[in-house]
């Protein structure tokens, strides 16, 4: 009898407790959500009424920023600037393997502490580049399902999603593919081969393909095809946000990591793919659209034409949230921009694809004080000649005025110089002294060989023997010839899980590299390496 009443009372109390907690949570207002949608390689002209009609229509209900710029020439430092408000001069991120200092307190961490769920959903976000930003990576989750769950649980979220389908190779799905036979000169096999490179190679280092001016229409058509495909995806996202009710509670930021060169200087791509970076307008001018729910701000303009850049996004978000970040951010609220804001940018010569990540020798810089724009390069710390352009008269940056307007060049150079001298070098992560450890041995993959998408059961991971609390270094050499890329990944524990990789990502960005050699060693120990595995990726 006593036992009966004990359990009856216990379950009554538990039922009551969970019901009360649920009611209290229901009564709490949820904070606004934030979606940061970055589109790979979207130059300013990528979004237009003709190419992206759905986006163009949606943008009427938001605010368009007509003179927005990236702050570097490749994805890593630009995305970090968007998500943290920190300039690439200060980040210390100049190539693969770099990341911001672990000790920094960043805006996304503030938001997480205040109750927002801060996440990224794509496997590549687990790279060192995006470490310690305050982002929880949930690889493989479908963004729509993820957002639907968040809407159901009424917990505010911050989601960064990077649309990657517009990266090289420009291979839009058939409905969006241009009719190249009507664009390319008839019978010109060489032209066809050049365009095939654009359609199949994830990187086209400068000088490897001798593009001709007449290739431009085809290249542009393929590039636009990718954005038509993006627009179809965006339409689905926009409808989902409306149907789920999230649009009324979510700030949406749509921008690009960087722009893209389409043969203006003889190349196709950007720093990490051409390995010959520059900061001309086609690379740095990017679109920016902000949608803010009316209940947060109902007085926002439809268009802002003051100069803005990626550093301004996070301060704007915090202003809209009514919060103050714990770290002072140098950017400006996008809705309170001064009429003439200077802009500076920096990039390493080859971005992600630097040949020797531990020895960065060549940097490219730019500074804008409208209409004057200065370009400068340094190699081994020595400055090369400056180049000066007047964007009001020469939007294509073809006439160097540094000789005739030396006063302007020197003024801009003097203002750029302190940032160059104070630029944070890449953070060197000193691994902890190795624990007494054995040479690691590969568990998965267990042996060299060919691996197709089906062999991975949808999940890409590396596993080796060792201690779960030790640090290891995975060295890799990907690709051969012009596509060769090598580097290191630091891992704690005996597994590196890249998460779920979808079929398109596998076919587009893994298979073209074909060959991957990997080995794993104990961090800090010189002679405790596994054997090299020779893996060949196949469809």
């Amino acid at each position, binding site marked *: 009898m006593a036992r009966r009443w004990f*359990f009856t009372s216990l*379950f009554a109390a538990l*039922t009551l407790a969970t019901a009360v*907690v649920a009611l209290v949570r229901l009564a709490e207002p949820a904070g606004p959500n934030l979606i940061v949608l970055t589109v790979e390689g979207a130059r300013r002209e990528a979004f237009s009424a003709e190419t992206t009609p759905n986006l163009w229509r949606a943008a009427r209900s938001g605010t368009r920023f007509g003179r927005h710029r990236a702050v570097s020439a490749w994805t890593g430092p630009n995305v970090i600037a968007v998500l943290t408000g920190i300039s690439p001069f200060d980040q210390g991120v100049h190539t693969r393997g770099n990341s911001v200092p672990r000790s920094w307190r960043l805006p996304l961490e503030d938001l997480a502490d205040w109750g927002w769920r801060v996440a990224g959903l794509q496997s590549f976000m687990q790279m060192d580049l995006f470490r310690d930003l305050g982002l929880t990576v949930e690889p493989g989750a479908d963004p729509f399902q993820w957002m639907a769950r968040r809407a*159901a649980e009424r917990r505010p979220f911050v989601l960064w999603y990077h649309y990657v389908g517009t990266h090289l190779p420009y291979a839009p799905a058939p409905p969006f593919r241009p009719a190249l036979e009507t664009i390319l000169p008839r019978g010109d096999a060489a032209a066809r081969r050049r365009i095939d490179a654009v359609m199949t190679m994830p990187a086209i280092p400068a000088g490897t393909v001798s593009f001709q001016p007449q290739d431009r229409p085809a290249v542009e058509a393929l590039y636009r095809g990718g954005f038509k495909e993006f627009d179809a995806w965006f339409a689905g996202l926009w409808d989902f946000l409306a149907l789920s009710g999230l649009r009324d509670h979510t700030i949406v930021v749509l921008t690009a990591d960087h722009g893209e060169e389409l043969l203006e200087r003889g190349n196709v791509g950007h720093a990490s793919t051409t390995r010959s970076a520059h900061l001309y307008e086609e690379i740095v001018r990017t679109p920016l659209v902000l949608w803010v729910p009316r209940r947060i701000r109902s007085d926002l303009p439809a268009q802002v034409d003051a100069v803005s850049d990626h550093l301004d996004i996070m301060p704007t978000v915090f202003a809209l949230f009514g919060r103050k970040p714990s770290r002072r951010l140098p950017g400006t609220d996008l809705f309170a921009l001064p009429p003439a804001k200077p802009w500076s940018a920096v990039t390493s010569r080859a971005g992600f694809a630097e040949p020797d990540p531990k020895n960065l020798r060549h940097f490219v810089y730019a500074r804008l004080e409208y209409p004057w724009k200065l370009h400068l390069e340094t190699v081994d710390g020595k400055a090369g000649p400056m180049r000066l352009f007047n964007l009001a008269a020469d939007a294509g940056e073809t006439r160097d005025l540094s000789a005739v307007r030396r006063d302007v060049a020197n003024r801009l150079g003097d203002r750029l110089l302190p940032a160059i001298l104070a630029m944070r070098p890449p953070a060197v992560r000193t691994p902890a002294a190795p624990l007494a450890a054995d040479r690691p041995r590969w568990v998965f993959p267990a042996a060299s060989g060919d691996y*197709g998408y089906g*062999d991975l059961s*949808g999940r890409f991971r590396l596993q080796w023997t060792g201690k779960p609390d030790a640090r290891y270094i995975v060295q890799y050499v990907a690709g051969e010839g012009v596509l060769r890329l090598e580097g290191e990944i630091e891992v704690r524990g005996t597994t590196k899980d890249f998460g779920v990789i979808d079929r398109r990502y596998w076919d587009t960005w893994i298979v073209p590299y074909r060959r991957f050699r990997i080995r794993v060693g104990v961090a800090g120990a010189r002679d405790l390496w596994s054997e090299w595995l020779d893996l060949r990726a196949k469809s």
Partner: protein
Amino acid sequence: MAETFRALRAAVPASLPYYLFSIVLLAGFIETFEVWQALNARLGGAYAGRVPLAVLLLLLLLLGGWGIARKRRGETIRPLPLGAGMVLAVAALALTDPAFPAKRIHVAEYILIALVVRKGLGFHVAGRALTVFTTVVTLLLGVHDELAQGLHPDRTFGLGDVAVNGVSGLAGSLIAAGLRLFEPGAPSREAQPTAIPLAAFFVGGGAVLLLASLPWFRDSAIPWWTMTPLLAGGFAWFLQAGGGHGGAGHPLPVSIWLALLTAVYPVIANGTSLVFH
């Protein structure tokens, strides 16, 4: 010493070791993924995917052979549930996720677990009730399997997998019923169930609601309200049935407790650093 052992043995229900064994099997099966990875590395994806099929085929052949041997010995078998069980085993295979061929092994695993559960329950009930409760208890063990996988850092919870486990458990239960396994005549057996208290259905409904809501909260805090219907069912059960059999025999409280214990996983997910995947 021998007397002490005999006394202990008398105090412990005869069914308990089989229940414990089924839980041990469950825990062991969760760890077979590493075996799968090794097979995959050695044989390649296409051949490794056939191993679960081969295991199931072997199991069904063994059970079929056992049935033939019993028939030859003059013992009766029930071909209808036996055949239905075999068909359901194949149907369960069709339910597995084709993207993850390793999951086909669940079918053989849960047929085996159903046999062990039936052995334990057979000390208390017989006939149709034995078949029904074997299925229910095996299904609930399958639910616990998936919930535990949801908390495992390298696994995920899947409602589809719960369905596979349940259908496989039903297949195993029917096959065992067809073969008349673990059905000795037992004059000391408890009364056959006469009625199932309404509160039991509340508990079942609460468990179903909890399970159905979980996919919405993958990788996040599971709201406490998802447990409210189940806990309310538990309150109703103890109020109505007093924690006893409620006229439905031993297997019902076993099933009720298995269902109520599913509330533990959201508590663990919310109260510790473990994330429910």
